[in-house]
């Protein structure tokens, strides 16, 4: 149900026709609004016409002959096929992992930057904005903090730490040496106008393997956790982040974010490649993306970053590989070096951002 001010959107009205939505507010509105009743009639007519058209195809399919499969010949072969059996560390870790793999890095840097284990380098994954948007939508729909707590015993802070305003001295104490911008583009103040920091949080997880496997089954995901994970405990430390923002009088801005890696301990024997495959399926990522992630040789130490047409462009930042992401106004650079992940973005030109990041 969407929020609306004057008239409900068509999608909500269409759902009323299928008995899928019927909030008291919508029903009251329909009772008093002749315009929306007329809209509903038009939608109902189109829905009926559609059903009539599709019934022709449904009828044809129902009458279509079905091949007979010689199951006796196939069965012995099929049952010996290797079963996909990802080893994983509980839904919370899964969620964090996928966030790293598939979440738009700009969005992640701004709010919820997460990486896995101790990443030291990046790998390029060819994908598209649409695939990423689909994956985010798929995950947001499937994984909620409440669900994670149902599938694993989690102890730690109730909410993930937030980015909070801080002082330069406190930021330096938290992070150690900070990335120094090579230049400050014209129109921006010499010193940051705002400092932010996100403190690390430690979580202990004990996955309920049976509950997770049941849940995966309910989602139609053809994979399950290894039963030997039953009773194991894992510790997760969320990344520490420091953000600095420069804001000029003419609306130009620069943001530099520096983050440590997510640390996961107690995960001996985890097959990251299989885990990545499971996570990709969970998010509904295209097979080509899943394959690329699974083929990254040193996944535990690698942060996969999306590139591709309309997505990101491979760039070199000193000795490091990075990605440039254009935005509506300006853009952002992301790269990894010396155990830190860096984000340099703002409504500046590509050349200006590269000059800021130059090593």
């Amino acid at each position, binding site marked *: 149900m969407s929020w609306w001010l004057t008239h409900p959107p068509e*999608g909500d009205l269409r759902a009323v026709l299928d008995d899928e939505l019927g909030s008291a507010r919508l029903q009251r509105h329909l009772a008093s609004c002749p315009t929306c009743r007329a809209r509903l009639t038009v939608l109902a007519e189109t829905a009926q016409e559609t059903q009539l058209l599709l019934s*022709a195809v449904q009828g044809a399919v129902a009458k279509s002959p079905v091949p007979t499969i010689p199951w006796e010949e196939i069965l012995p072969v099929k049952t010996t096929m290797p079963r996909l059996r990802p080893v994983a560390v509980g839904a919370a870790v899964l969620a964090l992992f996928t966030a790293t793999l598939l979440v738009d890095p700009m969005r992640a840097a701004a709010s919820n930057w997460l990486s896995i284990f101790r990443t030291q380098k990046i790998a390029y994954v060819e994908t598209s904005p649409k695939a990423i948007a689909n994956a985010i939508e798929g995950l947001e729909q499937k994984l909620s903090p409440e669900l994670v707590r149902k599938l694993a015993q989690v102890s730690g802070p109730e909410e993930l730490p937030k980015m909070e305003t801080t002082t330069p001295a406190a930021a330096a104490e938290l992070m150690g040496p900070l990335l120094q911008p090579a230049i400050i583009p014209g129109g921006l103040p010499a010193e940051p106008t705002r400092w932010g920091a996100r403190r690390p949080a430690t979580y202990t997880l004990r996955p309920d393997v049976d509950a997770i496997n049941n849940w995966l089954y309910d989602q139609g995901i053809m994979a399950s956790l290894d039963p030997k994970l039953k009773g194991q405990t894992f510790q997760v430390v969320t990344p520490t982040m420091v953000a600095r923002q420069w804001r000029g009088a003419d609306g130009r801005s620069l943001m530099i974010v520096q983050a440590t890696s997510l640390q996961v301990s107690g995960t001996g024997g985890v097959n990251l490649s299989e885990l990545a495959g499971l996570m990709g399926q969970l998010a509904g990522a295209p097979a080509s993306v899943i394959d690329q992630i699974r083929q990254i040789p040193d996944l535990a130490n690698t942060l996969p970053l999306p590139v591709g047409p309309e997505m990101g462009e491979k760039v070199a930042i000193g000795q490091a590989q990075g990605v440039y992401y254009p935005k509506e106004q300006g853009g952002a650079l992301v790269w990894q070096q010396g155990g830190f992940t860096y984000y340099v973005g703002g409504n500046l030109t590509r050349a200006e951002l590269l000059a800021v990041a130059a090593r």
Partner: protein
Amino acid sequence: MDLQDLYTATFRRALLLLGNRHEAEDAAQEAVTRLLGQGSGTVKNPGAWLRQVVSRLAYDALRRGKRTVDLPPEDAQLTDPRQEGPPDPAQVMVEHEQARLVRSALDRLSPRDRLTLLLRAEGLSYKEIAQAAGCRPESVGTILVRAERRLKEQYELVANSPARG
């Protein structure tokens, strides 16, 4: 329910979504193979499990986009083989032509529009459709409205074109 019955339902779902017998056979066989790979007793409701999995496989195939359109998609034999007496040839032709036109119109829609329309026509709930299409249940109504309009437009184009699709 034996394996062939499960396969029949799975194949029909795949054929409906894909409109191509070869692709439908591949998807149905893949789904059943995955079911068998799950080990006995792991899957509680194999019928429901297969329908969900094959919908997803069909959607993936549609999105890969390497589609070979084989028309007539559902095989030439459109009358019910179980019906008594010989089929009325005129009736067969009308049914066949209508199915072909609708299929041509569906082929011109995006994979998501097509999946949403067909799964809804099969009576699936918005939640189930959302699961197969990888979207939020709240978005299904909006997708349906647009897809229904597009289908109507495409059907009219196909039905009124000189080459008839």
